[in-house]
Structure formats: C-alpha cells, structure tokens
C-alpha cells in the first residue's frame, strides 16, 4: 500500500497531487510526515515540496475547474484535519473530468467532505472576527492572543488590517506559535520561537477600559432570560480563555 507523506504545507499538498496524477501507481493515502506511523503493509514515499509543480497544479485548478473550487481546497486545507488530502485528490480527479460542474456532485462523499470542512474553517474565522480581543500594551500597540481550532490567522488578518489601519497590532496564535504583525503599513505572518512567545504573553497589562467592558458585559445581561446552553452554542467555551469579559467571570447557576 503506497502512502505519500508531505510537509503539511499547501504547496506540499499540491506537489502530492501533481505526483499522483503523473505516476502510474496511485497513493492509497496522503499524510503529513509527522502523522505517519510506519507499519508492515504500507510503503512510505516522501514528496518534496516543489513550488514549480505546485504552481502548475494551482493554475490548472483555477483555469480548468474554477476559482471557487481552488478556494474551497485551500480553505479546507487550513482545517489541518486528518484525511482531507484524499478528499482533495478525489475532488480534483472528478474536477478535471467534469470542470466547474464538480460542485453539483454534492451527493458524493468527498465533495460534501470538503464543503463541510470549508464551512467549518470559515465559521471559525468569522467567529474570531468578533471574539478576538486586543489589549493596549503600550501607546498605540495592541496585542491579542487566539487559540483557534483551525489555522485561520491568515484568513482573518486582512479584516483587522482594513479595520484598524492606523493601529499597530500583533495577533498571536498560541497553539501554532504564529504571529501576525502589522505596523500601519503592511502585515506579515511569521513563526515564533518559544522565548519571544513567552515575552509576548507577559506583555499584557490591565487597563481602565477592560474593567469597564467587564462591567458592561454584566450589566447588559437579562437574568430573567438566562439560557447558558444558548450562550455556549453561539460562543463555545474554548474561546473564553482569550476574552477580556471572562477573566473574572462567575457563572450564574
């Protein structure tokens, strides 16, 4: 059983697709290198990321299938979910056959898989547009930590750049140790080492407006309508750690 492994990057996945199309033997599975566990029956083939091959695949998807399809694959890949790679491969095999109609085949599992993953990633990104909190750590420098389930930092960054174009800010993805840094001119997404990450996390300072916000949050609740299930449905508790209003939050019983 042939298994492709790759470096987790989108270009890596695109190279795998290229290889799968141009080799005689189709892979049974495609996995990130660190998720592969060697065993007796599977034969590993590591695919080195090749930007040129990746470019060719990307262009072919946009020209021969559609830009929507390309966007769907890219967004689904950000979910980092296991086994989305094979759905992408099957989706593209069908896509290169039927062109832009591929999205009509929603009764096929691999199409619906990607649609669902895309929706999940977009939902996570949309929620963070609201749930992300900045604190002012020094004059006109704003810092925020997030721990998103999916790798959505690069999806949400442009929104904040447009909205806070005159504000220096840093958005820190603590789970992946990625930061988005914006200096009022341009933004960059970088990887961070342990030391800098600790330094950033210790930057936060309490502030007058944070207390006011906590107070507003309490005052605007209608206790006669308490519905904790609904609150958690809309805003799962995994977001709460990073949110100002939940720092000293006591749950009503």
């Amino acid at each position, binding site marked *: 059983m042939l298994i492709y492994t790759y470096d987790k990057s989108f270009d890596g996945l695109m190279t795998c697709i290229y290889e799968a199309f141009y080799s005689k033997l189709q892979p049974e599975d495609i996995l990130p290198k660190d998720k592969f566990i060697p065993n007796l029956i599977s034969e590993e083939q590591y695919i080195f990321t090749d930007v040129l091959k990746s470019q060719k695949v990307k262009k072919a998807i946009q020209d021969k299938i559609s830009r929507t399809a390309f966007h769907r694959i890219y967004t689904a890949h950000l979910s980092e979910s296991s086994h989305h790679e094979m759905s992408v491969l099957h989706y593209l095999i069908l896509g290169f056959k039927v062109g832009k109609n591929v999205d009509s085949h929603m009764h096929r599992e691999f199409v619906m898989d990607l649609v669902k993953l895309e929706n999940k990633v977009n939902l996570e990104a949309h929620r963070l547009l609201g749930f992300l909190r900045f604190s002012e750590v020094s004059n006109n420098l704003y810092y925020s930590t997030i721990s998103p389930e999916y790798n959505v930092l690069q999806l949400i960054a442009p929104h904040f750049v447009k909205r806070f174009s005159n504000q220096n800010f840093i958005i820190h993805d603590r789970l992946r140790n990625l930061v988005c840094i914006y200096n009022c001119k341009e933004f960059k997404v970088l990887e961070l080492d342990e030391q800098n990450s600790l330094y950033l996390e210790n930057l936060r300072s309490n502030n007058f407006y944070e207390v006011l916000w906590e107070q507003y949050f309490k005052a605007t609740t209608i206790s006669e309508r*308490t519905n904790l299930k609904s*609150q958690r449905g809309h805003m799962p508790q995994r977001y709460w750690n990073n949110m100002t209003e939940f720092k000293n939050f006591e749950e009503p019983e």
Partner: protein
Amino acid sequence: MDIQSKLHILSAAAKYDVSCSSSGSNRKNSSNGIGNSHASGICHSFTPDGRCISLLKILFTNFCIYDCVYCVNRSSQDVPRAAFTVDEVVDLTISFYKRNYIEGLFLSSAVFKSPDYTMEKILEVVRRLRTVHNFNGYIHIKAIPGASTEIIQKAGMYVDRMSVNIELPSDESLRLLAPQKNKDAILKPMAFIGSNIATNKSERSKFKNAPTFVPAGQSTQLIVGATADSDYKIMSLSESLYNRLQMKRVYYSAYVPVATSPLLPSIYSPPPLLREHRLYQADWLLRFYGFSANELFNSENPNLSLIYDPKTDWALRNLDKFPVEINTANLEKLIRIPGVGMRSAQRIIISRKVHNIDFGDLKKLGVVMKRAQYFITCKGKYYGNVAFKDTLIKYALTKGSDVMKFQEVQQQQLSFLGEL
C-alpha cells in the same frame, strides 16, 4: 457621578431593546480613520442569556418625561438616574472599538426635557464620531418620536441604521399602557425615514458619490405578551411594515415583567420565550420564504402553534399540497417543505442537475429528515415512517418538539431566580 456608575445604569436600562444587528452596511474605512462595517454583521460576545453583543447598547440618559406603564425607565419608577456627556459616549465607543469589543454604537435615550433636545444630543454624538474622530464603524440610533424632521434628517446622514420602536401593536394597547404617546407620533418619523431612504437610494444609483442616508435601513420592535394582542395582529402589522415602509427588520421582545400594575402580567410570570421564538420563525417565513400572514393565520387560528413550528403547522393544515417531489419541484415549492431551508433547497437544485436525488442523499445535503420525511417523495416514492395521513403525521411530529426544550430552559431560570 463617575463613568463606571453611569455605564452600569445606562447599559442596564438599555438592555430590553433587542435589536442587535450590525449588518446591511458596507461603509469603508478612510485613510486617516478608524473602523469599517462588515456586510453580514459580526457578533462580538454572548451574554449568559444567550443574546449577542454586537453594538455598545446604551441610553444617553434614563431621565424621562413619559410614564409608559410597561417601561423600566418610566418617570414614576424609583430607579437610579444618570446622563452621559457627549464626550463620554464618544470616548467609550472609540476605546471599546479599538480593542475589538464592539462593532459600533447603538445609542438610544429616554426623553429628557423635550424630544428635540434629546434628538439634538444624539445628533451631536454621531456628528462628533464621524467628523472629528473619523469613525467608520456601525452606528444605530433611535429616532425620538416627536422630534423635528430636520434633526432626524441630519442625524440620518451620519448613521447606518435608525429605528423607532412601536412597542405595542395596536391603538387600544397604546392608549392603555402609554397614554402620552399616540400612533401618529410613532408612525410619522417612520414614514419620514422610509421615504428618505427610498429617495437616497435612487440618488445613489445615479450619482456614485451621493451622501448616504441610513444605508442599513430602519427597524422597529414590538413587545410580546404585555397585552392581549394576538399573533395574527402582530404579524399582519409586521407584514405591512415590510411591504409599505420598506422596513428592514421587525424585532419581537418577550415582555420581561419590570413593573407591578393591574394592567400588566404579574411580576412573577416568566417571559413568553417560546412565543417570541415562534414569531421570529414566522417573521423569517414572511421575509425570505414567500409566505403571507393570511396563509399562516386565519380567524380560527389567530395564534401560532407552540407545538409545531409555523411552517410545519402550515403544512399540516395544507396537506393537499404535499407530498412534494424533490427531483422536480421548483425553488418556491422546495422552501415550503418543513425541514428544508434556503441553503438545502439550493443544494438540491444544484445537485439534481447531475444526479437523481434519492432519500439517502437528502440528509447529506443538510435537510432535516425528522420533519421533511412526511412531506416529500423521492423518485415518486414516499419514505415517511408513518402513512401519509394527518393524524399519524401529527402524532409522529409531536415527539421531541420544541415545547419540551423550552420547559427545560424555564426550569433553569426559575431555580436561578429562586436563589436571588
């Protein structure tokens, strides 16, 4: 009084206004400005009552000259009173916005001194936000009934949404609970805003740079359960507001007893949350699913069923229009099937171009089979787990209905109130 106490009093006094949306506007940021608005709106937090915080919702003041029986800020009520200054509101809005707490400002006010004086204050806040601080976030303000049209017109040039609350859906209820207000004082500013929005729209279609007037439209709110008005009356009013005044949204607010009066429900009665939920469902049917109020109600059924959602209820009363064949029905017919929403209907239409849909596919496309199975056929075959007969279907649908879920929530609230 310090800003903390003011914020506490004036946000607690504003919380019964349910409007929370920040959608419908796509104001862009300017080069030296702060903020923009997001067409679909963004929720920034959810309070323990499950309602979203999108805008900083505050009153400018809760000093009021009116004495409306149902209102928490009526002049005869003994509550702490406060008033913001213009600078305080502006500073709070900008500081909260920069930390991404909010999508913008929702400024309302009790009527202080006179309607004109109150409206002037609101105008001053929004003028300063837009012109001095170049704030491009979302702003929703209340048009104060009785304020002069010039001030409302000026304020409309700065804001994204404006609203006038009707609160009580009939003239009799108004006379009973808010004797100092009358229908005309409420409907006049509404009609004025509505016609100005229409003129502005046509101007903007001709001239690209024409200034905007209330680009996200106007909304209003109706209180449910404070008076004896039927759901039929409420939905007919909503329908005419949508059709005649180009209203963007009508909100329904389950009445939370805040005052003792022989005219009102007892202070211990829980807010009618399930009824409010049903009204929102019916409202969606009016706005997006092509239903009319006369289809949903008749003189024998003036209120929505609490057991079934409005679409299921309608379908059960019109079983002669069912079952619908999934593979051939058009969009209008598909969205009238209980359990099929706009999104799943569109998916059905897209995917049946390349493939005959069978029963197993529907769940994958997002159809709620629990309800839909009784109202459809796939390739001519009926798949419901009981025969196509109204009594059997009704019985099957009653199990696991929303009534049970809401009773659970209400239990939770009662125990919470008991501990206070």
